[in-house]
């Protein structure tokens, strides 16, 4: 039986702008299986970020059901939601969002520390992951001393370090040049394949769309297509949009 990391049923979200309601998501139904490398594409205002925020528990849907890592997150308290984010989810933001006062290593171990992992174990894990993604030797640098690509890799390491069920990345390559963007995608794809971590991106970057093994297109808050450009990949045999 397929293990769904994410399952959305009839999800709706409307933002109020003054007295006018602006629909952001309409009747979204979506299932994401463990180990997928999925991109959500669409023009600005199509609802990509809203969808990621709702999956990540950063925003609440107006109606419908949102199941993430086996939990109906619409029914979780703020504390339980924070715990879910800490233990089962990883986030990569467009603007890197590393804490400027922490070193690369401290940023990466941030979530492990909050989970109560002992210092020695944290350092070991970060060192190992940094070696894997080409950040070895940069552990003691502050974000301001790193390039954009390096910062984003630290952000990916921070998201990966707790071995979450799902990593949500909101336009992770938007601020990177082509070569750095490709290098980052290589890192994420490698982590997806070696660790089996599920990645869901929002993007309008064709390079990301090309690398995705499943591509969902949104327009005006609705899913308009759900493609599988890399059918040969064994990791994504079981998935599908339910709407």
């Amino acid at each position, binding site marked *: 039986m397929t293990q769904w990391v994410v399952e959305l049923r009839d999800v709706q979200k409307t933002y109020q702008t003054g007295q006018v309601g602006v629909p952001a998501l309409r009747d979204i139904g979506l299932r994401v299986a463990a180990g997928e490398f999925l991109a959500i594409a669409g023009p600005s205002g199509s609802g990509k970020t809203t969808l990621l925020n709702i999956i990540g528990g950063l925003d609440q849907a107006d109606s419908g059901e949102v199941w993430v890592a086996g939990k109906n997150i619409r029914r979780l308290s703020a504390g339980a939601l924070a715990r879910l984010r800490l233990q089962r989810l990883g*986030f990569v933001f467009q603007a890197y969002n590393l804490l400027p*006062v922490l070193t690369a290593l401290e940023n990466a171990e941030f*979530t492990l520390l909050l989970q109560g992992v002992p210092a020695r174990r944290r350092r070991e894990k970060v060192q190992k992951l940094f070696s894997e993604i080409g950040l070895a030797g940069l552990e003691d640098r502050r974000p301001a001393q790193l390039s954009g690509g390096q910062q984003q890799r630290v952000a990916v390491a921070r998201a990966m370090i707790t071995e979450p069920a799902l990593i949500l990345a909101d336009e992770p390559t938007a601020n990177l040049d082509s070569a750095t963007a490709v290098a980052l995608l290589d890192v994420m794809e490698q982590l997806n394949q070696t660790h089996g971590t599920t990645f869901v991106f929002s993007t309008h970057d064709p390079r990301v769309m090309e690398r995705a093994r499943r591509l969902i297109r949104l327009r005006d808050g609705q899913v308009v297509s759900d493609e599988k450009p890399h059918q040969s990949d064994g990791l994504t045999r079981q998935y599908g949009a339910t709407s």
Partner: protein
Amino acid sequence: MAEVVFLAKLGWRNLWRHSRRTLLTALAFGLGLALLLISLGLLDGDHEQRIANRTRLVAGHVVVQAQGYQDTLSQKLLLSSRVVTATAESLKVGTLHPALGGVSPRLIASGLLSSAANASGVSILGVIPEKEKAFFLIPHRIVEGSYLDDEKATGIVIGAELARKLKVRVGSKVVLMAQAVRQSDAAAANDSGGELQSTLLRVVGIFRTGMLVVDMYVVHLPLAATQTLLGVPNQVTQVAIFLERESDSPIVARHLRSQLTGVPVEILTWQESLERMAQMIWLEDLFNNVIGGILLVMVGLGVLNTMLMAVLERRYELGVCAALGLRPGQLAGMIMCESLALGLISIAFGLVLGLGVHYHFATTGLDLRWFFDTDLRAVQSVFDPILYSRLSLARITGSVGIVFLMGIVISFYPAFKAARTELPNALRVL
């Protein structure tokens, strides 16, 4: 624990992202503490000097006198030598002895002092010169001649204002007239006063305390001569007790009350015998605390503003922390750690500055003659022109505690704001 240390580290580093702002804020808050310490030091120093001067001028830290004397000031209310001895013996009992400075019996009466030129009503203090010299102020304020001693049995010491009025100086003869306390049988029968007695004395010393009422009306003469004049051999009005520490007064008074049960005496601490001054000091303390409180609140509002700014400008960052799984309590804790660190830096600043200035004023003193050049004769207190700052450890820890507590209270609102970081709104700032 590791989490708390990490949040504290994060708070500390965040503090130094804007080092100039942090330093200025800490300096402002520290200045508040420093001003509080300086003002408390000067006020406590002033109080200590005033209490010391007044107790050395009047009746010591604790006074034992006949029941009812405090209210009536009747010179008929006297203590026998037995009570004086019992008082001195009581003070040797138990653990009080180290706190004791000394004991001085005194006989107080009113009289009329006349010279060839003039006459004036006076307050007569019959004293034992050696004890008076050891504990009381007037022997140390002699400006002409010398104080009484055992060889000057007919000597009298008077104030400078009185000397001016009577047109006398050291060596001049004066006549002291007083109503005898011991009545003749006829006088006792109709309850009239004792007979008028007079004695010829020679001025041996003139003092100036700077307190008009003392310099004009107080005269000192040997206890034996006073007892003879008033016809009350071996009797005194009061026993003045001096202590090493003024704060021991209530303990000593309590001890004496327990020891002298059944004896018709009243035992008063200086706060009770000098009630007006004690109340004045209490009021001044209160007023200073109110002013200090207002000062700290004003500075505190500045700190609150800084902390709030720090939270609001890091709204996005707090949003990221929340998104990563930091719970509201942890977000608040992070800000409180930051605020706490700022408070500790402020306290360090305040202590260095406040104690530095206090040390200067405690050793060199604040010369009040910089501010005025007239004496304050009308002030109902002996006035020292150089004010020495005094700060007890309790005052320092109390002030630091208040500032620390205030730092914590101030951090509540910014911490609350941080805890209320709303997702995903906080992540929409950029």
